[in-house]
């Protein structure tokens, strides 16, 4: 089950086809795999290796470099608490203490019901809105302890299911390139000429 499903293999092949070299699709495919299973399994890495033509060890090498890929199950909701400078200046440390108390786990831990994993995170590019957090990479800004409590209660009650999908689902919209509009990816060694529009004349 942790190999890509047939439907996901179709998506994977479409993604691979956009790159001049198949291995370039590896990070997007790891996301696809994590979306399917919630984390990255050994079998998934073997399968992705087959799809892009590299060994599973190479897939593992790439996957382990990136923090978003998880190799064991995490909670349905991964709560990343920003602790870098702008957030720290605005009380992120106290907020983390509160979060640990509310969830009953230390940073890095998962609640017993499997609903929440609490994590330290680095700068989330929302520094003016400090302190910030992300739940499955969806933002919350100017978070107070009360906001945090309400967020956790709402997530538990399923009130935010439309906005925040389960861990692994990143963007809910995929790029789709229509076949009749696609220029197509070509391996660089197969390109012998410069672009047609560089002939010194206007393109239109």
């Amino acid at each position, binding site marked *: 089950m942790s190999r890509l499903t047939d439907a996901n293999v179709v998506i994977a092949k479409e993604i691979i086809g956009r790159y001049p070299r198949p291995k370039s699709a590896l*990070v997007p495919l790891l996301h696809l795999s994590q979306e399917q299973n919630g984390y990255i399994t050994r079998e998934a890495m073997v399968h992705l290796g087959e799809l892009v033509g590299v060994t599973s060890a190479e897939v593992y090498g790439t996957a382990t470099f990136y923090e978003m890929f998880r190799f064991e199950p995490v909670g349905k909701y991964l709560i990343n608490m920003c602790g870098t400078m702008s957030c720290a200046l605005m009380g992120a440390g106290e907020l983390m203490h509160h979060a640990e108390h509310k969830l009953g786990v230390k940073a890095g831990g998962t609640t017993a019901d499997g609903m929440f994993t609490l994590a330290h995170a680095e700068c989330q590019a929302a520094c003016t809105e400090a302190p910030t957090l992300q739940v499955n990479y969806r933002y919350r800004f100017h978070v107070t302890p009360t906001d945090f409590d309400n967020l956790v209660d709402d997530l538990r009650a399923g009130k935010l299911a439309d906005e925040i999908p389960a861990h692994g689902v990143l963007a809910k919209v995929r790029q789709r390139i229509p076949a009749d509009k696609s220029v197509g990816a070509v391996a660089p060694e197969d390109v012998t000429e410069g672009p047609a529009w560089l002939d010194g004349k206007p393109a239109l």
Partner: protein
Amino acid sequence: MSSYPHAPGFVAGDRPKVVTSRFEYTDSFTIERYLATDGYAALRKALSKPAADIHEEVKGATVLGRGGAGFPAGTKWGLTPQQVWPRYLVVNGDESEPGTYKDRLLMERDPHQLIEGCLIACYAAGLSQCFLYIRGEMALAQERVATALNEAYAAGYVGKNILGSKFSVDIVLHWGAGAYVVGEETALIESLEGNRGMPRLKPPFFPAANGLYGQPTIVNNVETLANLPWLINNGVEAYTAIGTKTSPGTRMVAVSGHVKRPGVYEIINGTTTFRDLLYGEEFCGGIRNGNKLKAFVPGGGSAPWFTPDQLDLPFEASQVGPAGSMLGSGAIMVMDETTDIPAAALTLTHFYAHESCGKCTPCREGGTWLERILTRVVNGTGTDADLQQLIEVGTSICPGDFPHASNEALGLSAVPFPYKMTTICFVGPSAYAPIHSALTLFRSEFEARVTKRITIPVTAVGAAS
């Protein structure tokens, strides 16, 4: 001056809007709104001229790179070797420098503007495929750009024979997966090739000559490309009429920390000063609670710190560099008098130690040592020798004098930016920058920690309000 709930953090003012003109609309990210507000007019205009002319316009306007290094985009495009094909465009949307918040807004609020900028760059510099790399943690930006690309393909603005012309280019959306170092252009290329995102040694691998798949590759920042539609629509003269000769146009800056109105502002390049930004009523309106300013980081977490002595410097690289720091990615983090300086420095050193990719020993080992030593100093369990040790480890990452600002009260004169480094990229030096600044400008706060052996929780960096 107004702020919009749909563009969190953004504060509009009565100033030229080059890249934020559509932010007032709640539907600014749709193709309908884009087309109703001059969208894709610049593409049409560009295609009606020879590609070389468009390249000349971008060169003539001196569009400085907005990612951190400030290198002019038109010059960068000209560094590709002649007659080597294909050439690629890689868009750096991996915004993650501490304090930086602008590219995400541009991707979420106006993705078509970015797409049009990519198309203009590809046309002008003969780039035959574009990869738009968005930071992994930015789900909304990914959704907005994916939707915009799908709309633009359907409408014939992207893909084969754009607008019926001989210009054809695919734009491929690519997501990262969480690694700060991938914001470095050669690491970005490694990541895009499906590898661990570790920087390549430069030289010989300057991307313009030898980048993605060993081919000439232009790596441009999101904001840089977002400038192009306005430039082509309004012309070089209008563009250079804003700002100064060496820093034309506008710039997106994020001011965070202890100011009354933190926010993202589009400011006039070259003339706006830090004092304008921090104290001006049209900007941040001063320090919170009427407190005093203690220090500020002028250009992202990697930048050496400034104190009130440097407030009158303008947003101009040729003045900020000699003053001992850099403008970087337009990120200003403000610390008021309540700030615990060693603890604040630790948040940044922790960041860079954590984000080291491990390729260069001075960064991999040194960053971790800096974090450990500074942690015990902050916790009140350090010794005097630790302060010296911090400098020694830092000097092994950055030999020689490290840049710092002048300070009248301390009788210090400035050491100009940049530094020398024993690492391939700037992550290692960045772990030391906050420590060096804090130790140089606020040494007594460190000495109080080690001699009195006081214990202060690491998390208490500043009061929440």
